[in-house]
């Protein structure tokens, strides 16, 4: 009797827990799912309130096509966003791996000063130095160029990614290098052939953060990119949503938001453990 009662209670508790979990999960996922599904409605239907969220009068890619007809088009902005994000990933990985290796394995003048300088940039928000960044880019001839934006994004990533890479290199035993050095490997060969595979998880983590950072950044892109052909997705979509291209087409907004969200979600789901690792590394420092 008592056993059955306690089993029932445990079952009730478990049902309670999982219904809480499922309801909360639905609440968190709902806005994303709503936008992704609604984007596939025909334009006429997409203007109506999204009840239900899925298309009822047939599946359509009309919204994506419309989106491509605004200003310079979705595809131009998407290309800009891809270019900026990929370049930010590549450059911040190269710069951080080199710097992480340098800080971990060498003694040189001003080493501590440089390291503290790079880490301390995290204390100062870039929002407060955007105006001079704008002027510096103009001086360098990088005004209104995607390359200039990449430079800013890479710098924003450095404190986190160099800290990550320095720790990753610190964790590699020195004996491994000693052995490779005996075999006559030069510094750079050693870094690329011996060390890089050992710190690879760290590289994936900083690449992931660099991509998400660059893909999602809004304010710097809004301020620094003044020409429509240079707009990244967030800037272009905001221009569209503000009615800059005429009446607001909410179907196009749904399609644009989907294009902006899906790469982030796929990368996160595929590389989840690297993301959480990075978060923890940042959290315990």
């Amino acid at each position: 009797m008592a056993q059955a009662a306690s089993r029932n209670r445990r079952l009730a508790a478990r049902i309670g827990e999982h219904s809480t979990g499922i309801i909360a999960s639905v609440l968190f996922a709902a806005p994303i799912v709503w936008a992704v599904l609604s984007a596939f409605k025909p334009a006429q239907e997409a203007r109506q309130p999204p009840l239900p969220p899925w298309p009822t009068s047939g599946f359509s890619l009309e919204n994506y096509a419309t989106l491509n007809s605004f200003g310079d088009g979705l595809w131009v902005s998407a290309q800009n966003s891809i270019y900026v994000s990929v370049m930010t990933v590549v450059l911040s990985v190269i710069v951080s791996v080199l710097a992480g290796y340098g800080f971990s394995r060498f003694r040189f003048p001003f080493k501590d000063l440089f390291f503290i300088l790079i880490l301390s940039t995290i204390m100062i928000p870039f929002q407060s130095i955007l105006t001079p960044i704008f002027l510096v880019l103009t001086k360098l001839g990088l005004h209104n160029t995607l390359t200039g934006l990449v430079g800013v994004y890479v710098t924003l990533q450095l404190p986190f990614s160099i800290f990550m890479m320095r720790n990753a290199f610190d964790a590699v035993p020195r004996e491994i290098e000693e052995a490779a050095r005996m075999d006559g490997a030069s510094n750079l060969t050693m870094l690329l052939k011996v060390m890089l595979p050992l710190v690879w998880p760290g590289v994936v983590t900083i690449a992931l953060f660099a991509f998400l950072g660059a893909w999602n950044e809004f304010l710097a892109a809004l301020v620094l990119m003044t020409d429509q052909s240079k707009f990244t997705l967030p800037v272009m979509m905001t221009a569209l949503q503000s009615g800059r291209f005429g009446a607001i087409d909410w179907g196009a907004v749904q399609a644009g938001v989907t294009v902006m969200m899906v790469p982030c979600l796929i990368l996160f789901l595929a590389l989840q453990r690297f993301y959480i690792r990075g978060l923890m590394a940042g959290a315990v420092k």
Partner: protein
Amino acid sequence: MTIITDATIAPPRLGKRAGASRRQWIGLLYVAPAVALVVVFFLIPLGMTAWMSLHNWPLMGEHSYIGLGNYVAILRDTRFWNALRFTAYYTVIVTIAIFVVAFPLALFVERPRPLTNLYRTMFFMPAVVGFASASLLWSWLLNVDSGLFSPAAYDLGLIDRKFNLLATFQPAFWSIIAMVVWKVAGFTMIILMAGLQSIPQDLQEAAVIDGAGPFARFRAITLPLMRRTLALALILSVAGSILAFDQFYIILRGGPRNQTLTAVYWIFNQSFVSFKLGYGAALSMVLLVVLVALSLVQLWLLRKPEGLD
């Protein structure tokens, strides 16, 4: 932060060979690109901000030195102080709201049981979506005619006629809070969860044996041992909220009636809409001082527990 580098544990044979010390210098080459980027995109702009704040600096034409003129003007700039006050108000409310949602979620996903990983992933998903994407998405959901909330409430018979959530301050403000909590709670949850998991299990068990109830255990064990984690989550939320811009620009354009202009939004307006670059720089300096002060509080809150290093 462990920013003390380990110069003492360099290879012991250093200096015995002639090439060894020169080889150490190569380290400078490795860190040079990073240092160059920080100088060009951070150090120089930082210096320029201070320099520009002492000038009348229009976008076109000559700039002129005006000493502390911009700072004197800030003292009389009631709209900036309103923006600062609104930013502080928003920061307090949104931080409380995030914790009220994130802490129960962290307790919920902390213990491993079936489906926990799935729940964690679901709660975390909005956190990887950008603030701009989330704002655009919610600006649609909040729209009075084509959105979700108002028409859904109307269809369910909860309201007599469609209600524009973004037309007046209170509903607009709380809509933004809801959106930010949706986007950020999963992130805060993961940080709090890490803190919860770092509490030794035997401590909780010992307290149970001693007859401590769940609430007493939470107060006497969980909270004190999570001090650094709580401080970190708090600081990330506060620093992020003080710099809030995307959601207020995209969803509300600072409205209704300029009531939701944040500090960064006001600086953006002065610098890049009115093109008063010198004045914008002076405003930036004020914001910068606030945030550096906050960082110092952060270092103090995150200090290692005494006796432990």
